[in-house]
């Protein structure tokens, strides 16, 4: 039995699932119903225990002072201690300068490239760092070629070769991927086996089997993965996402995380006043995990002007999944983020960074 055929069959049918929902209201109603039934059961259990207890007490002790009723099932009574708290107003915190003492620089961990002519690259990577950013690249490819990455646990990605490039051998690093979260398919402090190959199959429509079958016998493409890492403590958690104190930009400057502002729960916008500063600052919109895979587009405005996103030309292009902008030094500025109504319950924030040494 061909494993690829099984995988392809399952994938094809799984993609036929209707992608509506989730209906949180319906789910909440269901939970409330189960909770009511449990509470009713608890009351009945407690009443029955009380009756039995009183009866036994009366019989054994010869009086009406029976034992206490047996406790019913324990029910959740309060909000989760791990959830993001309800915020009636936007909240802000500042990162103390002392946090910079423990910062470490971002460095290239590993870089792997295919053998000349080979369409397949399989590598084991060990990641000891706390934060990881990785770039899959494919250069010099013939038109129509797609790059396929498969990671353990069913993860992976397919992208056109002409849409990727390797930037990691220069002093480059992704802003929000570094400061706010790791890349989606490599987990810090873990060993990974990566299978990377090029294919002539159409990556937009092909199933797993077609992708593998479309692997050419040889290729001119140079492709692989660059992995960079940073071992540096988390100084803050912003809408559930860990933020490191230090990042580096494509321009070679250090960027220090100085301030985080979380939007009020359910707010339509987030406004941050940026005082005049001697150094350039950088503002990054941060979305909570609940909005990771949602087509939600926040509107970032600097001094009332919409910041085009994605920008036509920027040194940060291809790394950032939410709007960001450099805020020039020398004058106060107002940053506003108009937040999308969907997904409901999503949390939003901005992270403010300050330029350091070149």
């Amino acid at each position, binding site marked *: *039995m061909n*494993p690829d*055929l*099984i*995988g*392809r*069959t*399952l*994938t*094809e*049918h*799984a*993609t*036929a*699932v*209707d*992608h509506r*929902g*989730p209906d*949180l209201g*319906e*789910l*909440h109603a*269901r*939970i*409330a119903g*189960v*909770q009511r039934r449990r509470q009713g059961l608890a009351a009945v259990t407690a009443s029955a225990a009380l009756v039995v207890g009183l009866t036994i007490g009366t019989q054994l002790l010869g009086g009406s002072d029976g034992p206490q009723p047996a406790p019913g099932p324990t029910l*959740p*009574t*309060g*909000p*989760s*201690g*791990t*959830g*993001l*708290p*309800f915020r009636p107003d936007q909240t802000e915190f500042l990162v103390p300068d002392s946090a910079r003492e423990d910062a470490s620089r971002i460095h290239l961990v590993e870089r792997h490239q295919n053998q000349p002519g080979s369409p397949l690259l399989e590598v084991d990577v060990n990641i000891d760092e706390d934060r990881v950013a990785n770039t899959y690249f494919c250069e010099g490819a013939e038109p129509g070629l797609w790059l396929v990455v*498969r990671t*353990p*646990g*069913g*993860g992976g990605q397919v992208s056109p070769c002409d849409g990727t490039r390797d930037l990691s051998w220069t002093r480059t690093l992704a802003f929000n991927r570094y400061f706010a979260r790791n890349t989606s398919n490599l987990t810090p402090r873990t060993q990974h086996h990566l299978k990377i190959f090029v294919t002539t199959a159409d990556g937009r429509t092909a199933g797993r089997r077609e992708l593998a079958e479309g692997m050419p016998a040889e290729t001119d493409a140079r492709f692989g993965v660059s992995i960079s890492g940073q071992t540096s403590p988390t100084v803050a958690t912003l809408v*559930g996402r860990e933020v490191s104190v230090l990042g580096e930009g494509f321009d070679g400057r250090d960027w220090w995380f100085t301030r985080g502002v979380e939007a009020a*729960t359910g707010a339509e916008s987030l406004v941050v006043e940026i005082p005049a500063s001697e150094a350039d600052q950088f503002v990054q919109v941060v979305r*909570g*995990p*609940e*909005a*990771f*895979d*949602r087509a939600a587009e926040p509107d970032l405005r600097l001094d009332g002007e919409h910041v085009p996103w994605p920008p036509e030309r920027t040194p940060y292009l291809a790394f950032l999944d939410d709007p960001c902008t450099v805020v020039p030094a020398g004058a106060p500025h107002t940053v506003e983020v108009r937040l999308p109504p969907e*997904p*409901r*319950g*999503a*949390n939003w924030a901005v992270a403010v960074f300050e330029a350091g040494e070149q």
Partner: protein
Amino acid sequence: MAEKPEFDAFVLARWHALLRTAYLLTRDQGRAEDLVQTALTKLWFAWDRVSGDPEPYVRRIITNTHTSWWRRRWWSERATDRVVELAERDAPAEETMDLWTALGHLPPGQRAVIVLRYFDDLTESETAAQLGCSIGTVKSQHAKALRHLRADIAMEENPAEGATS
């Protein structure tokens, strides 16, 4: 009902992924949604006790609940109040249809192993952890499932041979 915003965030973020796995187990959109909602309801009550990533926990509830449903078959004639519109797509190849049909004949434990191994791409040890069984059980269920699939497809391709074997 107590507010659990992080639970809601988890549901919003992972609903579709959970639904796809549930669909492969149940092979029915309505039942898949019911299965995921049932699992998430159980997760809600356990939310404060779950440490770390809740997804393996809820996936385990999904596979276990599906197995118990299958045993009880209480849902077999359930009515649904809405018609589900599946996304349009090309008809799968005939060999794929045969395999899909054969997958539907597998008992729930074997089907779960196949889905976890070949769709979710889990290792044997990860599958064992997900199902709450030993690696040996995963291996034996896997082997039996493949044997059943081969036999089913062989019978489909050659009914006469299958009938006499």
